[in-house]
């Protein structure tokens, strides 16, 4: 089971210039707020896809849910 800081580190490592705040109460359901210049010009769907793609098959597996809020800084 990933920790909140592990999820944060992975998002920030995978998306250039990303800053993530990640919370979890049970290490299964996560809530992440991500700011990244890489989101500029992308639709919300495309922004969320960038973040979800970091976790691939883990979403729905070891990560049951990842609530997302994305913004361009």
């Amino acid at each position, binding site marked *: 089971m990933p920790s909140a800081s592990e999820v944060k580190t992975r998002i920030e490592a995978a998306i250039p210039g990303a800053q993530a705040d990640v919370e979890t109460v049970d290490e299964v359901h996560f809530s992440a707020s991500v700011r990244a210049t890489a989101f500029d010009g992308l639709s*919300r*769907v495309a922004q*969320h896809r960038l973040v979800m793609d970091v976790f691939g098959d883990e*979403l*729905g597996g070891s990560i049951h849910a990842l*609530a997302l809020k994305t913004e361009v800084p």
Partner: protein
Amino acid sequence: MSDNEIRDAIAEAIAGNEVILFMKGTPDRPACGFSARTVAMLEALETPFAAVDILPDPRIRQELSALSSWPTIPQLFHKGELLGGCDIVSEMYESGELAETLGVQPPPDAPEDAPAGADPAPTPLGIENRLS
């Protein structure tokens, strides 16, 4: 039904319904909180929508996600385009963008767009003033 037939049926459903929600359970009996919230927002906007329960066959979700490149449920489509899952739909609902996109009136409790840089005018411009 083969996996390909399922994918074709999903693509047809998306193409054939202006607003369609893939969810866990049904609008009357949602089986997941995120699906329930998304249904509640669509119902608050009083917009007609088609709904597909993905639970009866795991291949529905598998093929849907392969088609949409979106791993989670629910998924809301409008005119063939994925609008998003529960998080994005919630953001769009709260900003009034969802009502605008779907071409419906925002519900009375939704925040209305504040006029840009509105100064606190002592007397609001009334209809009489505009007509005179």
